[in-house]
């Protein structure tokens, strides 16, 4: 069974620092990484390939620098990588992103499962996975924490809920968005790294996937950002050192004053 994994390159928040003077994020020089949730998606795809055979293709959309992220997926063991890269894709919201990815997926063709991370850590929307499923008119299971059974036609998976999990059966092809609990992503192998070094990522422009210009990028996005602002930063409060009982009494007092208890 062939598998497609949709990944996103995001800024690494572990490197985000705050400018003490302006209280804004310093993002210059922040390295880019594969969205952490997408790492679990890649890993799960590789595990299913090891069980059922087939090919794993990683797909992304973005500027040329995203090739780095795709190569990292190749070094982990993905067979192929495709990047949708065209200035016309830029400024896409989740509607236009889902559309473009679904057109790329149709061009790749022949897939049993499409994996996505449950959400990206920069936008946090969790909307693109279900959006892709809708454009492809295939079923979806979100927040997947375990794949219990899978064959060419159907799968039984665990969907994480607020209270626990649901055991869900679905026909394939389907879109699964995965959570952290599903696996522990492998590190790239030496062989994989060698392959990634010389690997030529396939790059498709809007015309290559037959995307309608009206539906992609900023033009195809129903939503617009009108304002971006930094929320007032939390400032530290009282720091209590020394006698434990005095510190505890001061805190409980404070909670009472703020009517929290």
């Amino acid at each position, binding site marked *: 069974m062939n598998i497609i994994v949709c990944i996103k390159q995001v*800024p690494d*928040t*572990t490197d985000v620092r705050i*400018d003490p003077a302006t209280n804004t*994020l310093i*993002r*210059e*020089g922040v390295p880019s990484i594969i969205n952490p949730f997408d790492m679990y998606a890649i890993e799960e795809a590789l595990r299913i390939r090891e069980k059922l055979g087939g090919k794993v293709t990683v797909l992304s959309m973005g*500027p040329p*620098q995203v090739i780095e992220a795709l190569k990292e997926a190749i070094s982990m063991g993905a067979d192929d990588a495709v990047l949708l890269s065209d200035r016309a894709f830029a*400024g*896409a919201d*989740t*509607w236009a992103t889902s559309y473009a990815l679904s057109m790329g997926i149709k061009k790749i063709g022949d897939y049993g499962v499409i994996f996505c991370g449950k959400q990206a850590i*920069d936008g946090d929307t*969790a*909307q693109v996975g*279900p*959006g892709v499923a*809708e454009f492809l008119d295939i*079923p*979806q*299971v*979100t927040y997947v924490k375990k794949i219990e059974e899978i064959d060419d036609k159907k799968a039984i998976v665990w969907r*994480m809920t*607020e*209270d*626990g*999990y649901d*055991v*869900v059966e*679905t026909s394939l092809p*389907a879109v699964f968005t995965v*959570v*952290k609990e599903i696996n522990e992503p492998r590190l790239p192998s030496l062989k994989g790294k060698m392959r990634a070094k010389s690997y030529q990522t396939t790059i498709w422009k809007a015309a290559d996937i037959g995307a309608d210009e009206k539906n992609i*990028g*900023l033009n195809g*996005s*129903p939503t*617009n950002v*009108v304002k*971006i*602002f*930094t*929320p007032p930063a*939390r400032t*530290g*409060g009282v*720091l209590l*050192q020394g006698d434990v*009982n005095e*510190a*505890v*009494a001061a*805190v*409980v007092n*404070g909670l*009472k004053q703020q009517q*929290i*208890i």
Partner: protein
Amino acid sequence: MSDIEIIQDKCVGCGACLSSCPYGAISLKDNLAVIDDDKCTLCGACVSSCGFDAILLRKDKVEKSDISGYHGVWVFAEQKAGVVQSIAYELLGEGRKLADILGVELSAVILGNSIEQACRDLVARGADNVYAVSHPSLENFCDEPYAVILAGLIDQHKPEIVLCGASTIGRALIPRVAIKVHTGLTADCTALAIDEEKRILLQTRPAFGGNIMATIICPNHRPQMATVRHKVMKEAAPDSSRQGKVINVPYDRKMPASRTSVLKVVEEITSMVKLTEADIIVSGGRGMKGPENFKLIEALAKSLGGAVGASRAAVDSGWIPYSHQVGQTGKTVAPKLYVACGISGAIQHLVGMQSADCIIAVNKDPDAPIFKVANFGIVGDVFEVVPALTKKLQETCGK
């Protein structure tokens, strides 16, 4: 094609846009801002950061869809076993405000089985109309049939705003609906307002784990759709004397069978209180040193009537299940009180809890980053401080 440009005559080289770019695509060259096309995603974050109107984001003229004829505010009311979930009452509380500003009706949509009482509850909480679809196959949430039915109702009745909870159900369902009805969707909003002049919904949401906030609009498509974060909006109060219409929508028997089915529902949260519902959360981190010491966290949580959370370090060490993890790869919470015990406060943890109203931190390292966000910090040994705090609270609250 759309593009972005720095208007050189207006740019003063102040550099304010540099830090606004989430992708590090802007730099200063010869005292002018320069945008690197290879990195820029046209997200528009820089436009409002410029105090000199020097950044121009040009969007091609798009065909506007006909947005006249869309009226009313809708909320999708999530139910489990026929019981309306509290998020729906929060949506009705917020939806009422929006509907009153716009001078339109507030309606709720509910899908399920045996939902008569639920419909009455929705009316009592402020719904002028309740569109109810009842059928045994709709008892549990299933992505595709729910999306088909909701999209069908939207096409038929044309609401101008549709709100839904940013829950696991809402965030799976609503993206499919938004694609079906071809409109915009804003995820996980924490504030909603109306631009009264343009009758446009202003949807504000955190991004980058709450480090920046974005206000988003959907100018040319209807309905304007948003998921709303749980525990942010105030619940509508019940009033059993309220009158409203319940419209029973027949279930379309010709609807294609769902391609997914729920075989089993399993509850596994170990503590009594659900993390995302909790007003008070007590979390333990690496400093707890082992699973046995989470008893101290549980005792403190109990004395406060709160839920138990954990940092990634504690979860990855296998001390407590993943469902308790707070932070970037776990749950985002915004309780009234958050107590962090033996948690140093890595940025990934902070983004998951920094919107708490009040934060208490206990850590032995006075330089731990957690103290920078804490209202009350206690420098000390968690094994001394946590039991002392529990005891003091028990005395104070009598629990």
